[in-house]
C-alpha cells in the first residue's frame, strides 16, 4: 500500500463522515378516539400531516444524517420526546411547536417516541430507518385494552393496572386480516432476496414475533444487544425496543408471522386476529 492510496482512503473516509445531510422533517402529535381492531380506543400518534391517522409515521434517512425534526403538538397536554428510550429530546407543550435535532450515526431501526406517560401508553412512536436498503418492511406494534385507553385518555386513571388484559393488538395500526392489505407490513419478496424488517414495539408489554417457514438474523437491536447476530425464529421485542431483522428466504411459500404470546392474536374474542401478518415469497 503506498502513501497516495492512504491519503485517498483518508479523504474518502472524511468525505463520508461529512456527507451526513441535514434532513428537515415535521411530525404532528395527535391524540384522538378512533376504532382499532373493531374497538373504540384513545390513541396517541406521531403523524406526518395535520390529519389524524391511527398509524405512526416513518422517516428514512442515511447513516450520519442530522435529523432536524419539527414537532407540532396538537394535543391539549404537553409531551416529552426521546429517541426511543435512548436519548431524551425535550418537551413540547400543548398546542406548541419545537424543533429537535439528532444525528443518527448507526445503522438500523430507531424510534422517535413520546416518553411521558400518556403518549407512551397510547403508543406514540414514529420509526426512523437509518441506512436500511430498499427492500424493507416495518412492523410498529401496539397493544391496549379499549376501556383502559379511554380511562387513561380521560384522566380517570394514569397507569397500566396489574389486571391489564389487552384486547386491541395491532401492527402499523391494524389487526389481522387488515394487516395483510398493509404494503408497509406485509412482506413480499423472492427466494434469495435480502429483506430487512424493522420492528418497533410501541406497546406496553413484550412481544415475541414467531416466523413460520424461515429463521431471521437479528442485525440490530436497541435493548437486548446480546442477541445481535443471533439467528432465531422467535425474536423477542421488549417495550420501546427497536430491532432490525434480516430475512433471506430459502424457499417460496406463504406463511403467517405472528406474536407467539397467543393472547395477542385475538381481535375481541376471535382467534386469527391481532398481531398477525403474512410473508409471501415467490420462487
Amino acid at each position, binding site marked *: 500500500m503506498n502513501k497516495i492510496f492512504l491519503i485517498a482512503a483518508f479523504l474518502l473516509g472524511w468525505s463520508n463522515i461529512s456527507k451526513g445531510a441535514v434532513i428537515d422533517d415535521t411530525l404532528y402529535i395527535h391524540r384522538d378516539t378512533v376504532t382499532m381492531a373493531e374497538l373504540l380506543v384513545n390513541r396517541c400518534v406521531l403523524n406526518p400531516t395535520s390529519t389524524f391517522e391511527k398509524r405512526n409515521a416513518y422517516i428514512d434517512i442515511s447513516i450520519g444524517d442530522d435529523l432536524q425534526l419539527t414537532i407540532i403538538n396538537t394535543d391539549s397536554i404537553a409531551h416529552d420526546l426521546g429517541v426511543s428510550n435512548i436519548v431524551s429530546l425535550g418537551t413540547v407543550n400543548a398546542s406548541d411547536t419545537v424543533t429537535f435535532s439528532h444525528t443518527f450515526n448507526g445503522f438500523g431501526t430507531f424510534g422517535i417516541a413520546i416518553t411521558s406517560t400518556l403518549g407512551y401508553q397510547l403508543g406514540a412512536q414514529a420509526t426512523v430507518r437509518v441506512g436500511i436498503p430498499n427492500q424493507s418492511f416495518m412492523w410498529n406494534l401496539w397493544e391496549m385494552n379499549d376501556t383502559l385507553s379511554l380511562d387513561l385518555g380521560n384522566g380517570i386513571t394514569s397507569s397500566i393496572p396489574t389486571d391489564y388484559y389487552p384486547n386491541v393488538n395491532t401492527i402499523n395500526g391494524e389487526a389481522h386480516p387488515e394487516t395483510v392489505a398493509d404494503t408497509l407490513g406485509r412482506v413480499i419478496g423472492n427466494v434469495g432476496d435480502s429483506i430487512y424488517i424493522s420492528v418497533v414495539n410501541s406497546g406496553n408489554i413484550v412481544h415475541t414475533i414467531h416466523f413460520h417457514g424461515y429463521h431471521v438474523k437479528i442485525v440490530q437491536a436497541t435493548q437486548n444487544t446480546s442477541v445481535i447476530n443471533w439467528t432465531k425464529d422467535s425474536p*423477542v421485542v421488549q417495550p420501546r425496543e427497536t430491532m432490525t431483522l434480516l430475512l433471506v428466504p430459502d424457499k417460496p*411459500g406463504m406463511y403467517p408471522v405472528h406474536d*407467539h404470546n*397467543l*393472547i395477542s392474536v385475538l381481535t375481541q374474542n376471535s*382467534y386469527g386476529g391481532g398481531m398477525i401478518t403474512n410473508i409471501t415469497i415467490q420462487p
Partner: protein
Amino acid sequence: MKQFVLFIAVLLVTQFSTAQQVELWMQSRMDGELALGSGDTTEFWGFGLYTPPIIPKDIEFVGPVLRFVEGDSISVHFLNNSPEDHTIHWHGLDVDQANDGVPTTSSVVDPDSNRVYSFVATHAGTFNYHCHVFTTFHLSMGMYGLIVVDPDTSRNTIYTGGPRYTQEHNWLASELNRNWNDNPISPGLMTLYDATHGMLNGKYGAQLQDGSHDIIGTTDDTIAVRLSSMGYGKVRFIFPPEAEAEIHMSDGRQIPSVIATDTIDVYSGERFTVLLKPSAAINSTVEIVYSDVRSNEEITTNEIPIYIGVTDLDEQNIENGISILGNPFQGQLKVFVHNEAIQTLTIYSMDGKLMGSENVTPGENTLTTQLLSGTYLIHSPKMNGALRVVSY
C-alpha cells in the same frame, strides 16, 4: 495399539452418517384426563404416538418428545381421532407451506381423518410441535410437545462439531389455565386468559419432586439442558452459580458466542440449549419462575433439585461424609459412612433413574446391587451432592 485406533475411527465414521427415512404415527384426541395431584383432575386435549394398526387411547400431557437426527426425512402419519379439526405445526423446523400446519395457508385435518406431514430436519437443536387450529385455545388445552434434533446418532453433541455432553435434560415449560381445561365448552373471553399453573414437562410443584427431573452428576460432567416455552408469559430459569450455566444455542441455531449466565428468560416459542459445567459441589435447586407479561407479576415457581458431587477423593470425605471403598465395584458396593446423619443411600443411573436405595449406619456398609456395568451416582439428601461409582 495402531489397530485399535483404526478400529475406533471406522466405528465413528459408520456412526456419524445416520440420517434416514423416519416414519411415525401420531394421533390427537380431546378426552385426556390430567392428574393435578390429591385426586384432583381436569380435562386436556393432546397428542400421542401409536403403532398401527392398533390405536390405543393414549395421549400425553404434554405430548411425547420427538427425537430426530439432522438430515432425517420424516413422515408423520397424523390421525385426528377427535370430533374437531386439528393440525400439527412444526414450530421452528421451517417446513414447506403445505406441511406447515396452519389452517389458512396449509390445511386442517377434519375429525376422524388423517394426513401425512413430510419434512426434513435440516438443523440440530430444540424445536416444538403444536396444533395451529384456534391456537390460543387448542395449545392451552395441551396440544403441544418438544422436538430434539441430534446432530448424529451418537447423541452426545448439541450440534455438529459442537461441545459434547455427558448427560442431558429436556425441559418444556408451559402454563395451564385450568379454568379453560375445566370447561372447554364455554371458556369465556379468550383475552381474559390467566394461567393457574406453571408446568415443566406437564408437571408442577410437588409432582416435580419425585426424582424424575433431578439433575444428579459430578464436577466431571457436562450437562446439556434444553429449555423451551410453550406458555404465554415469561419463564425465568435460575441455575445455581456453581453450575456455571452457558447458553450455546437458541431457536435451533448455534449462537455466535457462548454466553455465561445463571439466569435465562424464555418467552413463548423460544428455545435455548444450555450447558452446565459444575465447578463445585451443589445441593440446591434450579428455580423456574413463571410470570405474566401483562402484569409482570409472578404466577408461580417450580424447583428442580440439582445434586453435584465433587470427584476429587479428598473432597469426597470432607464434603459428603462417605467414602467409596473399592470403586469400581462388582455386585457389592462398599461404602464407609463418616456422617451419622446419613441414614440412607440411593443409587441413580446417569440419566437420573432411581436404581435402588438402602439403609446405612456409621462405619463400613456393604450395599448389594444388581447393576449392569456402567457409571452410577450415589446420593443421600444429607450429602453435598452425589458421588460417581462405576459398576463392572
